[in-house]
């Protein structure tokens, strides 16, 4: 492994933590944009931190960074991954600690111009550096399957693929899963986002089983469409932070607990809220499920 300036600095620092080889470095990716990668990263980061896990969320979306906004940390960024890589700041200076949840820190994305020279090796360096201070490193991956994705994927041990039950999102997720498989990244788990129970009940949206069948991944979480997600983004306070009982917040907390190895039963709301039409169609033997 290449040892850049900042690592050498922290090695000389008597207060530096010992290298934490057990940190889990998890890529959060989707292929398609706008399906909820950054929202999952922010909420899962808070939820893991609340479980007492030292967590760093790493914004690998250098082109269109947004993780700072979702966490409400946009005004507190001084240094970024760029200065860390250049060795012009120390790790502690670049990490932005969350105000209300001190177990969580953000490693902000650098300047978009970095994309011109950033390599997979650079991302690996940043991820390994922050992993020294963390139990969990969540990498917020850029959309697409180009260089930005490749850089982020090179830095992770395991991956969470997030998708919605829509044609293009599922197809793009499948491309990404193929690429992760070819790089030997394991395990890869699925989070299904923005499920609309009513539509699923009426068979106008693919069901949870449909999507898990198609993608053949273990389901780590199921998040129903929830307006509170937009409200929380406006405020810069992830839903998991305030423990309000919104359905999406519960789902993100459950993802965190399952990630920790806890057995949390999967609650599928589409199994309960069957519309009248669906029940009628079912009676007539027309439902495919």
């Amino acid at each position, binding site marked *: 492994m290449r040892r850049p300036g900042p690592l050498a600095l922290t090695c000389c620092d008597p207060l530096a933590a010992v290298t934490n080889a057990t940190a889990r470095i998890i890529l959060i990716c989707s292929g398609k944009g706008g399906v909820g990668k950054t929202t999952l990263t922010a909420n899962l980061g808070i939820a893991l931190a609340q479980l007492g896990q030292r967590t760093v969320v790493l914004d690998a979306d250098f082109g269109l960074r947004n993780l700072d906004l979702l966490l409400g940390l946009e005004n507190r960024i001084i240094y970024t991954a760029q200065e860390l890589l250049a060795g012009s700041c120390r790790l502690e200076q670049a990490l932005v600690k969350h105000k209300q949840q001190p177990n969580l820190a953000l490693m902000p994305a650098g300047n978009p111009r970095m994309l011109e020279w950033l390599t997979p090796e650079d991302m690996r360096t940043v991820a390994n550096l922050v992993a020294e201070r963390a139990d969990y490193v969540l990498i917020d991956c850029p959309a697409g399957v180009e260089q930005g994705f490749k850089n982020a994927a090179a830095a992770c041990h395991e991956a969470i693929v997030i998708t919605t039950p829509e*044609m293009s999102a599922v197809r793009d997720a*499948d491309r990404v899963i*193929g690429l992760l498989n070819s790089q030997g990244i394991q395990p890869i788990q699925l989070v299904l986002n923005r499920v609309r129970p009513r*539509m*699923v009940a*009426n068979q*106008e949206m693919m069901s949870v089983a*449909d999507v898990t*069948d*198609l993608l053949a991944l273990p389901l780590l979480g199921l998040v129903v469409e929830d307006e509170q997600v937009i409200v929380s983004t406006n405020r810069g306070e992830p839903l998991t932070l305030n423990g309000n009982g919104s359905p999406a917040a519960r789902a993100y907390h459950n993802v965190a607990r399952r990630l920790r190895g806890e057995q949390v039963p999967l609650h599928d709301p589409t199994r309960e809220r069957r519309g009248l039409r669906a029940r009628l169609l079912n009676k007539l033997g027309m439902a495919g499920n």
Partner: protein
Amino acid sequence: MALFEFLQRLLGRQKPSGTLAKERLQLVLAHDRSDLNPELLEQMRREILEVVQKYVEIDLEEGDVSLETEDRVTALVANLPIKRARPAALTAPSD
């Protein structure tokens, strides 16, 4: 869902769009994963049929070679109804 669509579904004339989405994706994912373009697939299909026809007489109308995917494993599935074996197949090919 509009009433008209609902009636269409009741009458069994129209599949629900969720079911349609899954079926369309099953096909498109099989092709995406195999990385074969349609021309190559068609060429392979023709060559497979040629080889099989050397040994047995098959029903070309009913014959079907396609890609199917299950659990991330893509398989080439050939369904070729055999009319009868060719007598020539009993004598081993010269090459």
